[in-house]
């Protein structure tokens, strides 16, 4: 008994540390999941005279993608999003976070615009309400206006295929 006790303690330690190796401390779980999308009303990037509010998309599955022209990893993500938008699976809305409108428009003009529309969050107030702490981030919102998933960091082919597309297909099948 006394001989294998240290081994047991060691084994438990190894299991815990092993699990720890595969966790990403940068991915902080969002408390917004399964809660109503935080409300806002903000001017659109391309039509500043028009405001967008999340409740306008009730009955639709949509993704709020937080991006900025100063964000380096958004560039890589942007190519993926452009391809993804062509599939027409879901409505993409951009949240232009702490950016200059002119820079943002130029950026989209240069790299292509996957978004149905983008809203301006110049001082990051909307971002704060949505718990944004690193750009890019993406939220999947269902037909009832509930946040169902948060993707932290750039969306890539793998996360689209494995997580986002299956989730969107399920949500598209749900009743409004």
């Amino acid at each position: 008994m006394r001989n294998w006790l240290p081994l047991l303690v060691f084994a438990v330690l190894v299991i815990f540390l092993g699990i720890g190796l595969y966790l990403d401390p940068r991915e902080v779980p969002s408390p917004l999941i399964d809660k109503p999308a935080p409300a806002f009303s903000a001017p659109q990037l391309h039509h500043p005279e028009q405001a967008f509010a999340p409740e306008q998309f009730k009955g639709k599955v949509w993704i709020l993608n937080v991006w900025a022209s100063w964000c380096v990893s958004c560039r890589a993500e942007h190519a993926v999003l452009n391809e993804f938008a062509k599939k027409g699976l879901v409505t993409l809305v951009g949240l232009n976070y702490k950016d200059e409108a002119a820079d943002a428009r130029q950026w989209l003009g240069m790299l292509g615009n996957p978004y149905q529309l983008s809203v301006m969050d110049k001082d990051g107030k909307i971002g704060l309400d949505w718990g944004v702490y690193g750009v890019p981030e993406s939220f999947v919102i269902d037909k009832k206006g509930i946040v169902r998933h948060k993707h932290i960091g750039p969306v890539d082919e793998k996360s689209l295929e494995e997580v986002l597309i299956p989730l969107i297909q399920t949500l598209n099948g749900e009743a409004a």
Partner: protein
Amino acid sequence: MKKILPAALWLCSQLAVAAPPAAQVEVYDFKDPVLEQRYQTLTEQLRCLVCQNQNIADSHAELAQDLRSKVHELLIKGDNDEQIVKYMTDRYGDFVLYRPPFKIKTLLLWLAPALAVLLGGFGFWRVMKNARQPKEQLPEAELKSIRNLLDKE
């Protein structure tokens, strides 16, 4: 030597002047010292999610700046500490708190130290108990042969 010291002092003073100014943390002017104290305590309790091992009082990250300004805004608005902490956890989750709340999910986290002490105490008690037990008596015949062997030396 006497000449070197003033020169060294002069050099040091020049270096101090030439050093770039440290990045400034914005200062909020609280009229009420109680409010200021609460601001200090709150910002020291909240974690910056970008740097993760710094509280928002110490961090220069832009997000920490935003969170500080939010704490300031809510304090001026008259929110109590609980409301401000809830505002943060509603958006960023319990991770934003340096001191995690005691709930089912964090049970192991909070109880692990006590558990470790108990386990160690139990181990210690067992070792001590074994040490105190009288040694096993050898049969008389074996003792005799041992004595014989020793006497031969």
